[in-house]
């Protein structure tokens, strides 16, 4: 059930009505039922995977919770008799016991994700390797349909599992409540990836109906739909044309496609997140922020702090810190200082885990070599960014470059945008070879026909569509700059006169109806009399 479909609007209206008509103490139950109805309608038979993740997470977290309670009791009794080393040994022993619960649960759930998402990729590549090596074995190629939102709910539930393991949160002992946390329908499709300590209480409490909140929620949903249907789906026509024929288009066409895809993917993804956040807001639930004007970032690390924030935060908390602070990397840092010097050695426990994180983020995006290449590309940029940060700053000082002015910031933003756009070519092109070819042809076949010889009009959008796209991007940029300056747009709008607000609301709705890319596109030839 697509967020921009009429079915979703109807479903949401029924879910909201049911939620607020339910007695307060049972509201979470209504939400739980709505989630599973949504999943059954949208995901059908794949619901069994969601259930498997929920059951294993429940069993593991309750077990961990029980172990922690017992351990606390036993430790309280025994601690008087233990010295420092004894306490340390006790802790280590308990950690080992907990890992016996944690690791199977992690392996089971990430295993499901790996098998469903990556098995065809792995076996396909192994078969290629066997063929090259002359080994006559051919592994069967299993292609699975992915359950709706599996990457999101798996990460969300595993994050919760690790939090319980770390005793940061108490385990939820009500199975239905845990199922509600894992399956909250606005966020299960494309995130944001929620944290138990931020989300669960909001889901379980009996939220009151608020007209203001509903209004703001609907506004956010409209804004999200605008970004997706008017901007992203429109520019997608042009982007698909160019990326569909990488050998045909070169020079500025590739640059336009890369920039267009940056806008498309942002409009699509952040638009979907806005719809999810708006829908959640109607219920009185605030989802975590997932985008913060990423194309205004001044560096690649800054970009990743603003893009898919909850995924970045998940990898930071559950992969980067455990790796970076692990004994192995601490030792590596020490050794590194000996062989690579103090500056690089000190950075090693940061650089390698960072690279691993971005490599994993690349793989998370999909099971293709191009996503691995994307991970390596971003990991390399991050590593180089950290390594050369200080030397470059020193160089800028020597060259008397002012770094506290608009022009420098503009340069940083544009530089970051170019690097991001190159990364987008990797993920959007049909393959790694095609992306390399496109990047090369962008430089080698540089021409500006697309702008001056009407080339832009040959890519599937007519001049009226291009104007709509351009004006919509101006609206998006204006709103982004206002937000960057700390202006809360919806709150500012709420302070305006009623008539002005209504004009804005009506313009917003009609811009979606008239300029949104949905349904069958009108073509007069579909309506001519034929054949009588």
């Amino acid at each position, binding site marked *: 059930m697509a967020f921009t479909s009429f079915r979703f609007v109807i479903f949401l209206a029924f879910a909201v009505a049911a939620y607020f008509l339910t007695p307060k103490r049972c509201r979470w139950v209504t939400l739980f039922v709505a989630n599973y109805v949504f999943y059954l309608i949208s995901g059908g038979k794949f619901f069994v995977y969601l259930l498997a993740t929920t059951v294993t997470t429940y069993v593991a977290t309750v077990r961990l919770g029980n172990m922690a309670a017992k351990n606390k009791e036993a430790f309280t009794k025994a601690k008087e008799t233990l010295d420092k080393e004894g306490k340390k040994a006790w802790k280590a022993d308990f950690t080992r016991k907990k890992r016996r619960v944690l690791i199977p649960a992690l392996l089971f759930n990430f295993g499901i994700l790996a098998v469903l998402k990556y098995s065809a990729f792995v076996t396909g590549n192994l078969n290629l390797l066997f063929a090259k090596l002359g080994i006559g074995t051919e592994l069967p190629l299993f292609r699975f349909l992915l359950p709706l939102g599996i990457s999101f709910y798996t990460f969300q539930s595993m994050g919760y599992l690790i939090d319980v393991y770390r005793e940061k949160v108490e385990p939820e002992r009500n199975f239905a409540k845990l199922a509600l946390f894992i399956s909250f329908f606005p966020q299960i499709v494309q995130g944001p990836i929620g944290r138990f300590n931020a989300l669960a209480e909001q889901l379980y409490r009996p939220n009151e109906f608020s007209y203001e909140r509903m209004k703001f929620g609907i506004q956010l949903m409209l804004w999200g739909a605008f970004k997706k249907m008017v901007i992203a789906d429109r520019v997608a026509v042009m982007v698909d044309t160019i990326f569909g024929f990488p050998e045909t288009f070169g020079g500025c066409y590739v640059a336009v496609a890369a920039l267009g895809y940056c806008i498309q993917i942002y409009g699509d993804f952040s638009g979907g997140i806005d719809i999810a956040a708006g829908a959640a807001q109607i219920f009185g639930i605030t989802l975590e922020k997932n985008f913060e004007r990423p194309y205004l970032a001044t560096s690649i690390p800054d970009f990743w702090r603003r893009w898919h924030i909850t995924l970045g935060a998940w990898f930071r908390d559950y992969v980067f810190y455990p790796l970076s602070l692990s004994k192995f990397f601490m030792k590596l840092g020490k050794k590194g200082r000996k062989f690579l010097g103090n500056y690089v050695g000190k950075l090693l426990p940061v650089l390698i885990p960072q690279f691993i994180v971005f490599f994993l983020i690349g793989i998370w995006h999909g099971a293709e070599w191009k996503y691995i290449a994307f991970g390596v590309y971003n990991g390399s940029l991050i590593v180089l960014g950290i390594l050369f940060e200080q030397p470059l700053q020193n160089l800028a000082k020597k060259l008397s470059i002012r770094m506290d002015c608009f022009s420098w910031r503009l340069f940083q933003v544009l530089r970051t945008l170019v690097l991001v756009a190159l990364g987008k070519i990797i993920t959007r092109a049909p393959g790694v070879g095609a992306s390399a070819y496109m990047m090369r042809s962008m430089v080698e076949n540089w021409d500006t026909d697309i702008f001056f010889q009407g080339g832009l009009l040959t890519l599937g959008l007519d001049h009226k569509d291009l104007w709509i796209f351009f004006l919509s991007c101006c609206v998006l940029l204006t709103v982004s700059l206002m937000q960057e300056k700390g202006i809360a747009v919806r709150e500012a709008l709420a302070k305006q006169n009623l008539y002005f607000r209504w004009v804005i609301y009506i313009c917003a709705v009609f811009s979606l109806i*008239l300029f949104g890319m949905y349904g*069958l596109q009108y073509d007069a030839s*579909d*309506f001519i009399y034929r054949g009588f």
Partner: protein
Amino acid sequence: MKIMLKCIAFVTVFSMLFSHTTNLLMRHDDEANEIHAFYSEPKDSIDVLYVGSSPLLRGVSPMLMWQEHGFTGYVRASALQAPVVSYGLLSESLRHQNPSLVVLLCDNIFLEYDYAEREGDLRRGLDGMKMSPEKLHIMQKVTEEDPRQSMLSYAFPLMRYHDRWKEIDLAEEEPEPLLEHSFKKGNVYLRENAPQAYQAHFMEPTGEAAPAFQEEARGYIEKSIALCKEKEIPVLLLHLPKMAWSYAQSMALQSFAEENGAMYLDLDLAENRAQLGLDPQMDYYEQGHMNLTGTVKVSRWLGNWLDERYDLPDHRNDPAYAENWNIDWAEYAQRTGLSEN
């Protein structure tokens, strides 16, 4: 309370703008207008109801029959009307009207209907229909057959025509709502003439078998006949003149009508053609449709034929009918030039 009033006011303003924009961007084919204008006819005021594809639309003039015989009629037809649309239109019409005769044009019984290819034709039939259980059924059928189309776009045509702003000049375009009342009573006549010639041995028995009936079409026609029987309304299956027709098809429909207890009239059969006096050089718009002169000939002959065989009332002296129908006739006669004859 204040919030409620604000919401109602907002929805009202939005609905008005939505309706206005729909009128501005929606295509207005003659069929949709004529199908919609049917609703303005007073309840139980139509004596003969015609339903089916475009030959009816072009070839039958209820106004001429009114003028010559005094019975009323209305054509609810559209280009290549899908059998499900014909059944829906008939069923819906019979909730408003209690005619003395239903005339169905069934040539499409031989046609495999491609819903994906015929969206334009489907909309010609549906865009003029008000929302009703019958329309809902048609919408379901159409969207089942062609998943690219949506129920929403049939319920709110703006959802289908939303990007038509790109092709029309909004500064010059006058918003046109669907027609509320029609003086043509569903007869969208055409004036152009394209001379035709009958193929050799046209409508002569050749011994060849007729093409098979299309099962879905057959089912809907049978349901239509059953519905009329239930309401005790006689049914006439009609075939209007066209060049691509065969004796075998005619005989197959004759048998079908007999099996279903309906009457069948084929205006392409030699004896009927002789009486009609059609001139293929003058009376055709193209090979499947009459032009205005052909329409007049067909309607005059058909009016006489119907008047002789069915108990159709003459309302010409009934003030409840005469006033409005005479006004419409005057308009029709003036526009078609029949007043000069």
